[in-house]
Structure formats: C-alpha cells, structure tokens
C-alpha cells in the first residue's frame, strides 16, 4: 500500500517545518550559546535555566501558554495583530514560533559545549594577530566548533520532527498547514486506520534511528582526539 497524498503532504510539511526551525535556531541559538560559553555574568545561570526549560516542561505547559500568548488577548497576539500579521495559532508560522521555543535547548546546549571546549587560548592568539572579535569568531571559533554545529543542527531538526503535543494544542490540525507527520499518525490511529498509521510510524522510527546512528557513529571519540 502506498502513502496517501495526505501522508506525503504531512511529511513534506514536517520537513519544511524542521528545516526552517533549524535555520532560525542557528541564527538565534548561536549568539546565545556563544554568550553562555564566554560570559562570567551572574545571570548566566538564570539564562541557561530558561534555555533548558523545554527539556523538562511537558509540551502541554508550553502549548497552553503559547495558545494564550498568541491568542487575540495575549501579548504575542497583540503584537502580531499590530504588525498586521494576524494571529499565529492554527498557522504554519505559529508552529515555527512554537518549535523555536521547543527546540531551543537542542541547538544551544551542544553549541555551548563546543564553544566551551575551544577555550580562551585560540581566541587570544587570534587577537594578538589583530583579528577583531567578530573576525576571530568566524575564522577561529566557527571552524573549530563545526562538529558542534552539525550535532546541534541534526538534533534540532530531529527533535522538531518529533514534536507532537505542542502542535496538537495550537495547530488546529489543518492539512498542508499544521498537520505534521506525528499528528497525521495520531489521526490514523484515532480513525482506526492502523495500516496507514503503521506505514508512517515505521518511517518515523527508521528515520529517527538512522539520525541517531549517524550522530553516534560519526561523533569522534574524545579519548582518541
């Protein structure tokens, strides 16, 4: 039995969502991770804790607050309406916004670890060679942290693909807009279409396994390095 049009649409939507979220988080997460890795400010702790919150918070908590915040009476809802964007719940960009919060630690934490591993020395050397801090960041830190960027991007992408609870709470289940693969599977199960649910679910299982296999097989052994 082949995948239905609805299944293909859900897969494509999921890939698009995860891809866009990964790109946004590369742009947003990198400065945060850099700052967390370098700063000695007292509020490093609180900021680190806020970034890590989605790791421990149930998706229902995030979904609930996002639904209220993005609704017509919420602060985000006011902002988007003033900007003429309209309301975010039940839209693709609403999912993107939610996923950026939801997947933030999966981008920031591996990057922070990678930046911390570089240490001060290479950057000090770069500074003696008259590299500006921005120069040093792009020519020294980024190449050295490249494995960290790869790990962070893969984890962010995979984690966004695996999102379900938040999407169910703010998505409204719209085909082609917010009905991602995980929700499509849920719909199949609820409608007792087990054969179709199996197909998509097996694909997700294989995909997730391959991603993690790639990540762990490729990750250099620190003892050898």
């Amino acid at each position, binding site marked *: 039995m082949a995948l239905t049009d609805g299944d293909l649409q859900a897969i494509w939507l999921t890939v698009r969502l995860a891809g866009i979220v990964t790109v946004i988080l590369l742009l947003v997460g990198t400065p945060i991770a850099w700052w967390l890795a370098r700063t000695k400010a007292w509020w490093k702790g609180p900021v680190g804790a806020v970034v890590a919150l989605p790791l421990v918070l149930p998706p229902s908590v995030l979904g609930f607050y996002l*639904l*209220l915040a*993005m*609704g*017509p*009476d919420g602060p985000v809802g006011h902002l988007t309406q003033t900007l003429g964007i*309209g*309301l975010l*719940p*039940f839209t693709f960009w609403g999912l993107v916004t939610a996923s950026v919060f939801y997947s933030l630690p999966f981008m920031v934490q591996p990057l922070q670890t990678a930046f911390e591993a570089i240490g001060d020395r290479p950057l000090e050397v770069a500074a003696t060679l008259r590299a500006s801090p921005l120069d040093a960041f792009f020519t020294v830190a980024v190449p050295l942290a490249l494995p960290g960027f790869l790990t962070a991007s893969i984890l962010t992408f995979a984690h966004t693909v695996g999102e379900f609870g938040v999407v*169910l*709470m703010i998505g*409204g*289940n*719209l085909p082609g807009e917010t009905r991602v693969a995980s929700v499509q599977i849920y*719909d199949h*199960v*609820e*409608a*007792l279409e087990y054969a179709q649910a199996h197909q998509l679910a097996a694909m997700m299982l294989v995909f997730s396994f391959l991603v993690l296999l790639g990540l762990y097989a490729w990750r250099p052994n620190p003892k050898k390095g």
Partner: protein
Amino acid sequence: MNRLKLVLVVCFCLFSLSAHSEKITVAAASDLKFAMDEIITAFKKAHTGDEVDVVFGSSGNFHTQIQQGAPYDLFFSADINFPRELVKGGFAASEVKPYAVGRIVLWSASLDATKMTLASLTAPNITRIAIANPKHAPYGKRAEEALRASGLWEKVQAKLVYGENIVQTAQFVQTGNAQVGIIALSLAGSPELAPKGGYWLIPDNLHKPLEQGFIITKHGENNSLAKHFADYMDSSPARIVMAKYGFVLPGEVSKK
C-alpha cells in the same frame, strides 16, 4: 500512649473500611465533561467509601485503548458504534445501553451566537471556525454533515480549524483563537461555558443523530460497583442531570 493507641485504632478502622469499598474507573467522551462530574458526585453520596475515577477523552481513542486492555470498567461513548464494535469483539460485559442523544450548537465567546445561523458563518469578519475533527470525533462528523446539508461546507472549509475532541474545540473558541465553533450543547449550556457566550441550536434534521451508548467492559465484569453505576444512569437523579445539560434521553422527543 493512649493517644497513639487511638490513632492506631482509627487507622485500622479506615483500612478495614477501604478493604470493603470498591473502585471503578469510567472512561467518558469529553462532551460529558460537566454532566458526568455532576452525576458522579451524586452517585458517590449514595456510595460513600467507594471510589469512582473518571477519565475524559475522545471516544475513538478509548475504543482503541479498551481493545488493548485499558483498565476502564465503564465506557461512555459519544458514538454508539464504538461500544457496539467492542461488544462484537468480545471486549464488553454488557449490552450496549443508549444513554443520550447529543445536540450540536453554534457557540461564540466574542460574537452573539444567539442571533446567528449556520449561514452567518460565511461573514467576512469570521475568519476561524472551530469544529471537532470529523475524521474521528463524533461531534465533528455531525458538524460536517450539518454544514454540508446547508450547502456551506465548500464556502467555509478554508476557515475551519479542527479540535482533537469537543472540549478542545470549545477551548479554541473560549480563548478567542476561533471566533465561533460548533460544539456540544452539553458544553455550551454548562455553568462553566454558558456565562462566556450564547449559543444557537443547530436543527437536528441537518445531521444524523448523535446516538450515544455505554457498556460495562470486560475489565469491569465482576465489579458490582460498575453494575450499580450502570443502573444509576437510568435513575431519575441521573436523568435530570443529563437533561439539564441538554442531552435528549432515550425514550424522549427532542426539541427542535
């Protein structure tokens, strides 16, 4: 020391009491959210010491879970076909008992729904209409039928958002994320939601009846409390509560 003895005696009494008490878990369709809570509160008054737990969710989901051995003793479905299938599959310990016929309404927390009809949904100021997912939620199926019967389905389809169950659908409307929704009368007329907005009753000749039925599951077969609860649904206090929430009871005629 005397006080300690007293505490021990009290503890012993409590333990022996609880040893004689029984416990049931009820799986109920989410349109019963407020009505079932009230029925259980009344039932517990007559059965002090016994424990009644209730889980609300989508009927389709419960149907799947019960087939996989979920420990529910009674199953109240918003669609009578789910318990019928469970009886056929040997997952039930009773016949299917119809307990109510549900009604759907237009409900809004921001507009005056009492002055609306289904045709009002095409108005340009309405950009989001919440209905339950017609693929698996009985109330969603009926909402779709009513919209199709009125020739509005194609016109409003682009505005529809789908709730996972009927309570989530109501919540989309309550938070203002959808201006209007098609939800269960039992929710729109409940003390929790009624103060937030009025409703318009959708004529029941526009859709198939929302026949609801319950069963005692195999899990509850030897639980006498489950049988008491099943009988209680037929009693007049329970029927009064159900009628109060807008359910049409078996053997009664619906208001148009």
